[in-house]
């Protein structure tokens, strides 16, 4: 895929570094996400995956490096420009992060409030997003009334309601039972096919990577240690790579 120069690059990270005191988490991480692909980034717990995506969406400033999203270097953007760019990103948080004082409907309407023209069609967009995740019946429930799997589906609906060009998934299957995890992965594939968005999936779940990825990156020791398809990486003889697939 990297060799195919006709495919548009939607996200590019170059030499990203981030340290917390003496703890150097990212030591020059580099990657590219192409239009329409599902890229999985795998790494052990504490390897800096979450730090990397927090830098990526502007929740944390990197120490150095470039982060380019659809041609914009986000480290150089003003707050308003960053907020505008963020509407092209969907983010599924590890713990779903639903607003617990709001109903499912209000949770889904929330990202629309900065778009007057979309807010006018809020009802239609909310129903469409909930239909995509099969939860139209839960529209007036509070997050506390939902199961873990339902919460993750609602969070997914909220992430896709603005039809983002890039969807970022932070550990989408963590904490779910195997059946619900499979359902979430199936939904992710369906949404990707329907909306044609590029997906960046952060996980340490090998099954998730096998099912969903077009391409994988292994984040080891703060760098892009290895890159390739699931088949290529799982057959590697490198011990550090093998450790992920045992």
């Amino acid at each position, binding site marked *: 895929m990297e060799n195919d120069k006709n495919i548009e690059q939607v996200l590019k990270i170059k030499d990203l570094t981030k340290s917390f005191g003496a703890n150097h988490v990212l030591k020059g991480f580099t990657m590219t996400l192409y239009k329409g692909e599902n890229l999985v980034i795998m790494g052990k717990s504490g390897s800096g995956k979450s730090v990397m995506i*927090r830098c990526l969406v502007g929740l944390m400033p990197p120490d150095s490096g470039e982060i380019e999203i659809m041609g914009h270097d986000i480290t150089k953007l003003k707050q308003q420009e960053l907020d505008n760019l*963020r509407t092209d990103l969907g983010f599924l*948080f590890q713990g779903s992060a*639903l607003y617990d*004082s709001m109903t499912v409907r209000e949770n889904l309407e*929330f990202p629309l409030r*900065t778009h007057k023209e979309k807010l006018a069609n809020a009802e239609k967009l909310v129903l469409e997003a909930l239909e995509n995740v099969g939860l139209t019946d839960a529209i007036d429930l509070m997050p506390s009334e939902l199961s873990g799997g339902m919460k993750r589906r609602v969070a997914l609906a*909220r992430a896709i309601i603005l039809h983002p060009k890039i969807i970022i998934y932070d550990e989408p299957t963590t904490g779910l039972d195997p059946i619900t995890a499979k359902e979430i992965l199936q939904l992710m594939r369906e949404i990707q096919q329907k909306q044609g968005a590029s997906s960046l999936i952060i996980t340490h779940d090998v099954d998730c990577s096998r099912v969903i990825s077009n391409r994988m990156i292994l984040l080891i020791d703060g760098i892009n240690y290895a890159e390739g398809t699931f088949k290529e990486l799982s057959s590697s003889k490198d011990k550090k790579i093998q450790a992920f697939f045992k």
Partner: protein
Amino acid sequence: MIKSLHISDRIKTFLIEIGELSYFAGRFFKEVFVKPFEFKELLRQCYYMGNRSLLLVSVTGFILGLVFTLQSRPTLIEFGAVSWMPSMVSISIIREIGPVVIALICAGRIGSGIGAELGSMRVTEQIDAMEVSGTNPFKYLVVTRIMAATLMLPLLIIFGDAIALLGSALVEYLKGAVSFQLYFNKVFNALAFSDLIPALLKSVFFGFAIGLVGCFKGYNCKKGTVGVGEASNSAVVFTSMLLFIIDFIAVFVSDIFFEI
């Protein structure tokens, strides 16, 4: 040596916190005048803070007036000054005791509530989710809460003062056979605008302090669920201390302008 280091560290931490709180307050003033204005959320917060504190303020105010009058009565009788009771109680409650006691109660009720709510939103990544969706969480969560506390505290204090005077009037009615009409006539004769205005201005600052510290502690909450408890607890402690400092400054300034 170890002890002095420990104390100097604590002073340093305290000063850093004051600096961060000032920066947080500065950000509030920067954002409060910038569009979009979150009127719906502001009204919702006003409703929660006002409506949910009403019963607590009523009970506290009523008991305050009742106890204050009961405790003062024997001394005033001894000096043959029991007829001064309405004047004494009203001036004390309106000027000082009412605003301070009700603000302390609200620091516990409203300040800790804001600290816990925002703290919990921070540790469960709800604030991050707002930010990622392109919404300014500071404007939506912090500005509205500080504004609501600033608006609602004076109203709660006026209401609490009125209930405290009612409690005092009830004691006078039962113990001294003073009618409610006579009691309140004496109250209004004793009060001047110079008693009401500083107290009202003071209560605006009390409300601002409660909202500001609660939001500051909750918004910057760290260390997971333990941090939520800490945020809620320290919001009350810090606010209570701040309320007394504001009260001291308010009395000092009132003395200059109104010659108490």
